[in-house]
C-alpha cells in the first residue's frame, strides 16, 4: 500500500507535445503553397517516409551521443557496411528478389536486414573497444578517432568490394505505388515508414518501460551511483553502442534500397544529414 502511495506521488514524466507537433504544423503550413490537396498529400507522405529512413540511422546516433556522450563521426561507416552486407544476401538471391510475390521478397529482405544489423553491431563492438574506449570523455579526440575509423572502414570497403557502384534493384512487389484517388504513395516508402515507426516505438518502450532502459537512463544521470549499486555500466553502454550501430546498419539497407545502389561513400555523405537530424 505504501508502495502505491509512493509511486502515486512521483511527478508525471514530461511529454514533449510541441516538438512532436512541429512537423504536422510545418506540413500544414505548406498546404496553401502547394495548392492541390492530392499533391500535398503525396509529397507529405513521401517526405515523411524519407525522414523515417534518416531517423532510423539517426536514432543510433541519438542513443550513442545522448546517452553516452560519445561523438561518433564514424556512424556513417556502419551505414555503408550495413548496405554492403545486405548485397551479400540480396545479390545471390536475386531470383527471390525479382519474384513477384510479397512473401518471397520479404523472406529475402528480412534476413538481409538482420544480417547487416548483426554485422554492423559487431563492428560497433570492435570500434568501441579499439577506438573509443581510450578516449572516453574527450570530445575532440573522439571526433578525430572516429573520423579515422570512418576513413579506414570506407577504404576497407573499397578494397574488398571494389570502387564501382553496385546496383541493388528494389524487390518487385515493393515497386510502384498505391493510388488512392489522386494520391500516390510509393509502396517502398510505406514500408520504410512502418519500419521507422516500429524502431521508434521499440526504442521508446525499451527506454521507458524496461529495467534495462531504467538503468541506462540512470547511468546517464549518475554513472558512479549505478556502478555503486552493482551494475556493470560499461557493459550496458557497450550494448547501447552496438544497438546504435546495428540501427545504422538497418538504416543503410533501407537507404541503399531506396537509392537502388550501394556505394562506399554513401555513409560519409549521409553523416552530415544525420547530425542535423539528431
Amino acid at each position: 500500500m505504501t508502495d502505491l502511495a509512493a509511486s502515486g506521488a512521483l511527478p508525471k514524466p514530461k511529454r514533449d507535445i510541441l516538438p512532436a507537433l512541429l512537423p504536422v504544423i510545418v506540413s500544414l503550413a505548406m498546404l496553401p503553397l502547394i495548392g492541390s490537396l492530392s499533391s500535398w498529400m503525396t509529397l507529405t507522405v513521401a517526405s515523411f517516409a524519407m525522414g523515417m529512413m534518416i531517423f532510423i540511422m539517426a536514432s543510433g546516433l541519438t542513443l550513442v551521443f545522448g546517452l553516452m556522450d560519445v561523438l561518433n563521426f564514424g556512424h556513417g561507416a556502419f551505414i555503408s557496411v550495413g548496405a554492403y552486407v545486405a548485397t551479400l544476401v540480396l545479390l545471390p538471391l536475386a531470383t527471390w528478389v525479382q519474384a513477384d510475390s510479397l512473401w518471397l521478397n520479404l523472406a529475402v529482405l528480412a534476413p538481409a536486414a538482420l544480417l547487416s544489423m548483426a554485422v554492423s553491431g559487431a563492428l560497433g563492438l570492435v570500434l568501441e573497444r579499439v577506438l573509443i574506449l581510450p578516449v572516453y570523455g574527450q570530445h575532440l579526440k573522439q571526433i578525430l578517432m572516429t573520423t579515422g575509423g570512418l576513413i579506414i572502414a570506407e577504404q576497407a570497403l573499397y578494397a574488398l568490394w571494389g570502387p564501382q557502384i553496385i546496383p541493388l534493384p528494389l524487390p518487385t512487389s515493393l515497386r510502384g505505388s498505391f493510388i488512392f484517388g489522386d494520391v500516390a504513395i510509393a509502396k517502398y516508402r510505406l514500408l520504410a515508414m512502418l519500419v521507422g515507426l516500429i524502431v521508434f516505438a521499440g526504442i521508446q518502450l525499451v527506454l521507458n518501460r524496461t529495467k534495462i532502459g531504467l538503468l541506462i537512463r540512470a547511468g546517464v544521470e549518475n554513472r558512479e551511483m549505478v556502478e555503486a549499486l552493482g551494475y556493470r555500466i560499461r557493459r550496458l553502454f557497450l550494448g547501447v553502442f552496438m544497438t546504435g550501430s546495428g540501427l545504422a546498419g538497418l538504416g543503410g539497407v533501407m537507404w541503399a534500397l531506396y537509392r537502388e545502389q550501394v556505394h562506399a561513400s554513401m555513409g560519409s555523405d549521409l553523416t552530415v544529414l544525420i547530425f542535423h537530424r539528431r
Partner: protein
Amino acid sequence: MLDILLMVVIGGMGTIYGAIIGAAIFILAQNYLQTLMGAASKAAADAGLPLLPGLLHPDRWLLWLGLLFVASLYFFPTGVVGRLRNPPRRSS
C-alpha cells in the same frame, strides 16, 4: 578538408611548425606511399596471395594513411611536435 585535418593532427595541434611537419609527412605519403604500395601490390599479386593485392593497391593509400592517423592518435596524442617537445614524462 579531411586532408588538412590529417596534416594538422599528425603534425601536432596548436603548433605552427606542427602543421608544416604534418603537411610534409602527408604530401610525402601521398606521393611516395602510392609508388611503394604499387610495388608491394604487384609483388603480392605475383606471389598469388589473396586479398592483399586489393588492400595494397595504390588507390587505397588513404586506408593506410587512416591507420597511420589512428596510430598517431594512440601513440602521439599531442602530435609529432608535442611528443618531441616533452618526450620522457608525457608517455602514459
